[in-house]
C-alpha cells in the first residue's frame, strides 16, 4: 500500500515538472517570435512575465498535487473495497468448506464409535462363550493338581523320612565320636588329676618329713651338751682321717 502511494506521488511530481517545462518552452518561443518580429519588448516586461509565470506555477502546483492525491486515494479505496469483497468471498467459501469437513468428521466419528461398540460387544460375547470352556479347563487342571498334590505329598513324606533317617544316623555318628572324644579327654584329665594328686601328696609327705627333720635337728642340737659336741667333732676328724680325706 505504502509503495503504491510513493509511486503515485512520484508520478504526479513528474507530471508537474513536465507541465512547467512545456510552459517555459512556450514562453521562449514567444520571445523569439517577438524578437523576430522586430517588436521589441522591454526588459521590464520580460521580467514581469517571468514573475507572473512563476507565481502562477506556484499557485497551481499545490492544486495539482491535491488533485493527484485525491485521485490516488479514491483509487486506493476502490481497490481496498475490491480486495475486502474478495476476502469476504474467500472466507465464506472457507467457512463452508470447514463446515462440510466438520460434518464429514462427525459422520466418520459416529461410524467409528458404532464399529468399536460392535467390536467390543462381539468380544464380550465371544468371552462369554469361552467362559464355560475356560471353567472346564480350570476344573481339569484343578483335578490334575489335586492328583499330583497327593503324589507330591507322598514323595515328600518319603524323602523327608529318608532325610530324617540320614540326619539321625549322622547325628548319632557325630555324637558317638564326640562321646568317645569326651571319654578320652575325661580319662586323660582323670590321669592328670591322679598324677597331680600323687605329686602333691608326695610333696606334702616330703614337707612333713622336712618339718620333722627340722624339729628333730633343732631339738637334738639343743639337747646335746658341749662335751658330746666336742666328742662328735673329734669323731668326725677321726672318720675323715680313716677315709684318707687329709
Amino acid at each position, binding site marked *: 500500500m505504502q509503495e503504491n502511494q510513493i509511486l503515485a506521488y512520484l508520478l504526479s511530481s513528474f507530471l508537474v515538472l513536465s507541465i512547467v517545462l512545456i510552459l517555459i518552452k512556450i514562453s521562449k518561443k514567444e520571445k523569439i517570435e517577438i524578437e523576430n518580429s522586430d517588436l521589441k519588448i522591454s526588459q521590464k516586461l520580460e521580467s514581469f512575465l517571468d514573475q507572473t509565470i512563476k507565481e502562477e506555477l506556484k499557485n497551481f502546483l499545490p492544486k495539482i498535487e491535491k488533485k493527484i492525491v485525491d485521485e490516488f486515494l479514491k483509487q486506493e479505496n476502490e481497490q481496498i473495497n475490491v480486495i475486502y469483497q474478495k476476502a469476504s468471498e474467500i472466507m465464506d467459501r472457507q467457512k463452508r468448506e470447514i463446515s462440510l469437513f466438520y460434518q464429514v468428521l462427525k459422520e466418520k466419528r459416529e461410524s467409528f464409535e458404532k464399529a468399536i461398540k460392535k467390536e467390543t460387544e462381539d468380544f464380550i460375547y465371544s468371552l462369554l462363550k469361552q467362559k464355560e470352556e475356560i471353567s472346564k479347563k480350570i476344573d481339569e487342571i484343578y483335578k490334575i493338581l489335586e492328583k499330583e498334590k497327593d503324589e507330591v505329598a507322598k514323595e515328600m513324606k518319603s524323602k523327608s523320612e529318608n532325610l530324617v533317617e540320614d540326619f539321625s544316623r549322622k547325628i548319632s555318628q557325630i555324637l558317638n565320636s564326640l562321646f568317645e572324644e569326651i571319654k578320652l579327654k575325661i580319662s586323660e584329665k582323670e590321669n592328670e588329676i591322679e598324677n597331680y594328686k600323687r605329686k602333691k601328696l608326695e610333696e606334702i609327705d616330703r614337707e612333713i618329713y622336712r618339718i620333722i627333720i627340722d624339729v628333730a635337728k633343732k631339738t637334738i*642340737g639343743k639337747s646335746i651338751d658341749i662335751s658330746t659336741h666336742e666328742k662328735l667333732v673329734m669323731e668326725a*676328724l677321726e672318720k675323715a682321717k680313716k677315709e684318707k*680325706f687329709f
Partner: protein
Amino acid sequence: MEKFLEKLTDKIITKEDLISFLDQIEIAKSFLFQHPEISLSEKLKGKVSESFRKEIANLEEKEKYLSVAEFSEFFDLLKKNLLKIPIVKLEIAFEPRENFISEINEWFKKNLGKKVILDIFVNPKIVGGAKIEYQGKWKNYSLAKKIEKIHE
C-alpha cells in the same frame, strides 16, 4: 732364729690369729726404720699385742747384733712361712672353747704331722659333728646329714 720362727708359728692356731699376727708384722715393719737408737720392742709398746711385743723383746735379747735390715728380712720370712701353712675349714654346731681349739690343733699336729691353721665357722643347723674342708675338698660328717639319711 729358726726355732724362734717355729715358736712364733706355733702360737698361731686359728685364721683370726693369723690375720691379727700378719697385721702386727706390718706394724712392726713400719716402725723398724724410725729412731734406730730405740729398740723395736720399745717402739712397739702399745702398738701391738703384748705377747707379740714380748716375743720381739726376747729376740732382741737373744740376737743382740740384729740389724734393721736383718729384722726386716726376718719379718718377711715369717710372713712367707705363715702364708704357706695349710688352712682347714671346720663347720661345727657350737661355739668352741679355747682348749678344744687347742685340742683340735694338737690332733692335726699328731695325725697329719704338720701345722695347720683352723678356720672355724659355727652353724647350729648342722646339729652336731662337723663339715670339713681341706685343700679344695670337703666332707660332711654332721648329725644333720645323718638325720636326713634316716628319712631317705
